[in-house]
């Protein structure tokens, strides 16, 4: 092999370094991408929306130390959650919804947003939206007709976030169902119900908002509800183009092209 020129050496060396950095970047970003895809976790009260939260939380654990019930934990390797970020497991220890919310004001980065859990200048934990409770009506024994109101009684917003729906038990003809129903715009996601649930595996459990809630979209509106008009105020017009909607409805029906061949 002939001697390489200095210029060629420099270019090759630079290319090699950039290539190595590229390998590193690919491995690193795929590790990050994977490790951040843990959607089933509950954040402390006042947490920003998940993507913003991951960006803003500095993982200092001040919220964890501030929690008087040891509810909050920092995700360690093996928890399969974004490393170092605070979360809680409602079945083990739920959020007890302290009135002075000690975990939120200590946050140095604003990842836990004090304003989102305040009414004016006063902290209001009932505004927290950590998740939403969901009932499995097939496992919940109240839906079987057996009397249980553990979740209803455990709820810190008694008779607000969980209400009991009465229905006649047709099987016996003389008993009532007392079915727990979650009022979604009151539920804070504290998980006291999940903690209190008496079934083997909780039949009422808290899911993160974006997992636990559906969305009707702008196509449907409650015509009988003035407030619901507001929801679709900013609805975008526009129609969907499909194979048969290219023509007008009448033309499409009358179109016999290819029908008699």
């Amino acid at each position, binding site marked *: 092999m002939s001697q390489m020129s200095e210029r060629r050496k420099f270019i090759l060396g630079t290319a090699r*370094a950039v290539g*190595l*950095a590229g390998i*590193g*970047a690919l491995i*690193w*970003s795929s*590790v*990050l*991408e994977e*490790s*951040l895809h843990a959607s089933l976790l509950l954040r402390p009260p006042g947490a920003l929306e998940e*993507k*913003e939260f*991951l*960006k*803003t939380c*500095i*993982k*200092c*654990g*001040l919220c*964890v*130390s501030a929690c008087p019930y040891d509810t909050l*934990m*920092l*995700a*360690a*390797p*093996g*928890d399969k959650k*974004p*490393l*170092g970020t605070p979360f809680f497991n409602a079945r083990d220890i739920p959020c007890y919804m302290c009135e002075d919310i000690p975990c939120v004001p*200590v946050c*140095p*980065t*604003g990842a836990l947003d004090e304003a989102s859990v305040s009414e004016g200048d006063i902290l209001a934990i009932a505004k927290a939206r950590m998740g939403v409770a969901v009932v499995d009506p097939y496992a919940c024994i109240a839906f079987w007709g057996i009397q249980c109101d553990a979740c209803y009684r455990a709820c810190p917003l008694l008779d607000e976030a969980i209400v009991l729906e009465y229905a006649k038990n047709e099987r016996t003809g003389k008993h009532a169902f007392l079915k727990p129903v979650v009022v979604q715009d009151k539920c804070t996601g504290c998980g006291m119900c999940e903690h209190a649930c008496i079934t083997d595996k909780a039949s009422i459990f808290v899911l993160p908002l974006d997992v636990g809630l559906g969305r009707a979209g702008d196509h449907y509106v409650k015509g009988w509800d003035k407030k619901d008009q507001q929801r679709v105020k900013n609805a975008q017009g526009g129609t969907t183009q499909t194979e048969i909607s290219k023509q007008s409805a009448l033309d499409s029906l009358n179109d016999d092209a290819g029908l008699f061949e």
Partner: protein
Amino acid sequence: MRYLIARRVSQIGILALYGAAHIWGLKILEGNLSSSLLLGSVPLSDPFAVLQMFVSGSIITMDIFLGALIITIFYGLVGGRMFCSWVCPVNMVTDAANFLRRKLGIAQVQKRVYMSRNIRFWILGLALVLSFLMGLSAFEFISPISILHRGLIFGMGFGFSVVLIIFFFDLLVHENGWCGYVCPLGGFYSLIGRFSFLRVRHNVDNCTECMQCKEVCPEKEVLFMVSKFSETVNMGACTNCARCIEVCGDDALNFSIRNYLN
């Protein structure tokens, strides 16, 4: 030995204060090395973490901006890269690996692996690029320093595996491999601390050229002046660990204040 003891007291003491704050609510030093609260009022934040947050597009609050500024000013003016050898808990792991490596004589049976000291700066750059592209603090989600430190205070999980990787990497693959070559936080502090005042000073008049200082130094390049001329150790990579001072039997190395005037 006194500097070694002082370093261990500092490293373990800081951990103990964080631990006491978390377990007993002792409000001297709360939080962890990413961000903490000194005496319940003074914010202290990891400037590298805050820089990544800034690059990722997160809003920087006054608290962490001030915290990062305080830390930057302290290491920038006073300590240099002192974080690495006086605060960081990984130092105890790599020191242990290094100790064992020397005792077992692993270097004698091992083929020499070449690594560049600049790897850490590439990783540092990558951390910022990835933070920008992915919109999150890239290094903070994988940092073994945070995993170990957080783990000791808040619960370890499987974090020990990461610590073991570093231990065996330093023991079997490369001397001082993690702290001296790979760790971007060390690289970051060596950039911040390059102009700081507290420095080791070499006095060539006392030097007997035994070269024991270069033997123990984890960043050997910084001691290039030993046996040649008297000067303070000015390179940012020096962690002020004082191992060279302790090993020198001839009083040719000592802490001193850097003199910018001549």
